[in-house]
């Protein structure tokens, strides 16, 4: 790794950056230096202020105090446009594409190729876009409408957009949270070549291994404060974690052996048709989960895991076939309400869109799924609702200024706990968790793992979908692998390892192992 010389002027730096949101001090006098040709990691717990810092340095937000220097010169960005003019780009954490425009139209948005007539030259845009995508993912058609692409592909389009802007500073906010491992490899290669061209890159991720692999330096933020900047080469994973959390962490995964009870959930050749095409998103999946057991489901992006959980939860009654049984009794799951009635709970993949009513208070969210608990004489009782919310806030140690606070102001990890509370309040016998730790920090992850273990002890049957292998290996009793909608393998905790799981997840594997599943 070529560590940039400390004497050179940084391309971009922030001095004493303060950002206040109503009621939150998101950044507290943070200094940050970015050198040309370096990949600079930025890490910190949820809500540490990483995204906010990037937004300020890229003009998308204005700091409350502090100054920004570009090539040592004081600058002021009133909006993202002005930063873009200085070729400072962000690949945003929340996807920021125009759904109904084509890939090329998105990539060229704001910098359209205009012919002599003053009209947009779509042909040459498509051509140039194709060239750009050839580096990243040649399977993406420049003319395809963006909302027809998979999330991972959309992420790639965002990256292509930054490249097309000929940025000299690129901020990447958790760019790998939605893309597959092979796409990650492509991205890393790309980052490497960008660095060689002298482009400065800020890379935000919760994935420590990634940071250690590709960054030159790593800056740690905690609670909106600057903690330290480390040179990656000499740094241990534990050091970073300690700096982030402010103390040493005990074991990541708690796993007590629990009594495996009798079968609770059983699927018999469950399939789900796509609404659009005729193909199957889930094909002939059978499985069984027992009380006190955690079944992990692994697969690459788009393997059909989310669809599987959603089918079980009664979200696609018209396109689902096969059967779901609880305690050996076949259930007709026409709707989430029916599924909940049979003791199934789902913590969905996207907590902002599917998990929470963001504009509602924490307490209202917690009681939403089982509102009968807080009714007395057909009216909602403030007192019962408060008690109900308090018990979960305590049990899951949810950090919120007040239970009447809107859910939207909580950090990702705490939002996830609110979703969990809502689902747990229905007293499920089967708990389906879809990427329960996506985008949340290491400490919150630990707490969630501990909770999963605790629930397992209580005799719940738990299904966890995750794209993170270490996580799955850490918490599952059994792991099933899916690929292209089919179940391709199943391993006991002892058999499972990263290699055989990955093998089973890659298309082409199932031919040899159909007997296995």
């Amino acid at each position, binding site marked *: 790794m070529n560590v940039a010389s400390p004497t050179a002027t940084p391309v971009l730096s922030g001095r004493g950056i303060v950002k206040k949101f*109503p*009621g939150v001090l998101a950044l507290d006098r943070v200094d940050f230096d970015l050198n040309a040709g370096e990949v600079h990691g930025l890490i910190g717990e949820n809500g540490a202020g990483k995204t906010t810092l990037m937004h300020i340095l890229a003009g998308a937000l204005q700091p409350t105090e502090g100054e920004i220097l570009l090539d040592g010169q004081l600058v002021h960005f009133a909006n993202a446009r002005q930063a873009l003019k200085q070729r400072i780009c962000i690949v945003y954490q929340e996807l920021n594409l125009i759904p109904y425009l084509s890939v090329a139209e998105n990539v060229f948005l704001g910098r359209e190729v205009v012919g002599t007539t003053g009209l947009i030259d779509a042909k040459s845009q498509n051509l140039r876009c194709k060239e750009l995508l050839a580096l990243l993912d040649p399977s993406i058609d420049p003319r395809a409408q963006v909302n027809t692409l998979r999330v991972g592909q959309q992420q790639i389009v965002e990256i292509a957009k930054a490249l097309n802007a000929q940025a000299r500073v690129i901020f990447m906010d958790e760019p790998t949270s939605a893309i597959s491992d092979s796409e990650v490899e492509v991205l890393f290669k790309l980052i490497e070549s960008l660095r060689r061209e002298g482009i400065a890159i800020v890379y935000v991720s919760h994935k420590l291994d990634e940071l250690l692999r590709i960054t030159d330096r790593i800056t740690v933020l905690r609670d909106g404060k600057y903690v330290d900047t480390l040179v990656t080469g000499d740094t241990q994973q534990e050091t970073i974690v300690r700096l982030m959390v402010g103390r040493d962490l005990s074991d990541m995964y708690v796993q007590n052996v629990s009594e495996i009870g009798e079968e609770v959930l059983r699927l018999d050749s469950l399939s789900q048709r796509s609404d659009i095409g005729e193909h199957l998103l889930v094909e002939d999946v059978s499985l069984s989960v027992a009380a006190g057991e955690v079944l992990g489901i692994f697969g690459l992006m788009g393997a059909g895991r989310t669809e599987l959980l959603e089918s079980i*939860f009664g*979200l696609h009654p018209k396109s689902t076939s096969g059967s779901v049984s609880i305690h050996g009794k076949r259930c007709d799951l026409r*709707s*989430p*309400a029916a*599924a*909940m009635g049979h003791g199934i709970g*789902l913590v*969905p993949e996207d907590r902002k*869109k*599917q*998990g*929470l*009513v*963001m*504009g*509602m208070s924490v307490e*209202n969210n917690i009681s*939403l*799924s089982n*509102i*009968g608990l807080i*009714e007395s004489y*057909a*009216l*909602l009782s403030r007192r019962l609702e408060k008690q109900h919310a308090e018990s979960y806030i305590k049990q899951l140690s949810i950090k919120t*200024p007040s239970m009447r606070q809107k859910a939207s102001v909580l950090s990702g990890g705490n939002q996830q706990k609110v979703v969990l509370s*809502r689902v747990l309040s*229905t007293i499920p016998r089967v708990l389906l968790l879809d990427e329960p730790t996506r985008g949340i920090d290491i400490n919150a992850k630990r707490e969630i793992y501990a909770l999963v273990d605790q629930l397992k002890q209580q005799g719940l049957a738990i299904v966890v979908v995750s794209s993170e292998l270490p996580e799955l290996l850490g918490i599952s009793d059994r792991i099933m692998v899916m690929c292209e909608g089919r179940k391709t393998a199943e391993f006991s905790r002892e058999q499972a390892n990263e290699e055989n799981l990955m093998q089973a997840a890659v298309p082409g594997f199932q031919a040899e192992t159909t007997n296995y599943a």
Partner: protein
Amino acid sequence: MHKSSKDLVKCISRFQSLLVLVLMVIAISLLSDRFLTAANGWNIMRQISVNVCLSIGMTMIIIAGGIDLSVGSILALAGAVTAGLIKSPVPIPWLGIELDFTLAGAMIAGIAVGMLLGWFNGQMITRVRIPPFVATLGMLSIARGLTMLWTKGFPITGLGSSFAIIGTANFLGAPVPVWISGLLVLLFIVVTKKTRFGRYIYAVGGNEQASRLSGLDVDRIKLWVYTIAGGLSAVAGLIATSRLDSAQPNAGIGYELDSIAAVVIGGTSLSGGQGSIWGTVLGCLIIGVLNSGLVLLDVSPFWQQVVKGIVILMAVAIDRLRNRGEDQ
């Protein structure tokens, strides 16, 4: 400290419409000594009672993330149906009988028609997935046409003194329409704030998908909201008809905009998930006081329209400027 300042902002925001209202009342009272009298107070409240009924339903629909352009047409049809049934029995030729409605029967039938049309709106929106704006725009036209067909374009008048009670009588010192709208307001404040159904309305408007995944039957909730709103429009239609002792085929034209204005002035956001009936009542009062004040102050009818537009803009502008920080 941080917290208490936030609470203050919240508190002001809750009472902001009230503030606007009080300021208006003070200003007009200073300019006209005929304004601040008990008689005029009842008068204003009686005048807004129709809009209050419409706007209770509109508020719930908007909180649930929808909109309803058909309230005025439903008002007209329900009024006409009730009036028609009061006046003359309905022959059912193939059974060889005539249905002769009692007063109560006619009124229930009118409300039922309102609910039916609201239900139809709901079906279009939840089943066929037509956006609420369009579905209720279609209904605006259909219900108006049905009113015309039912009345053949002529008002139905002479509905009798019992029916006139609803719109014109007093009870315990207050006009009956004020009782009706007031009780409905109380009822639906409780419904929206204290019942499961009310909570669900907020949830559905706040995040439909999350509500579905939380086990709510989103479509059924919406269907009920539109159905209830249809019923409330019908009640408004009964009041309007009774006050005039006549069901006018062109009653309620343009009322949807008045109603939406009241809801919005009352602080309910058109994007759903937020708002309150109480705010809407203040919105209706602001509009009512303005109308009455402009007349008492002898403002020319032409200027009145200009002033009304400006007040709508200002009422919402204050709200937006105050919230500016939050949503950017």
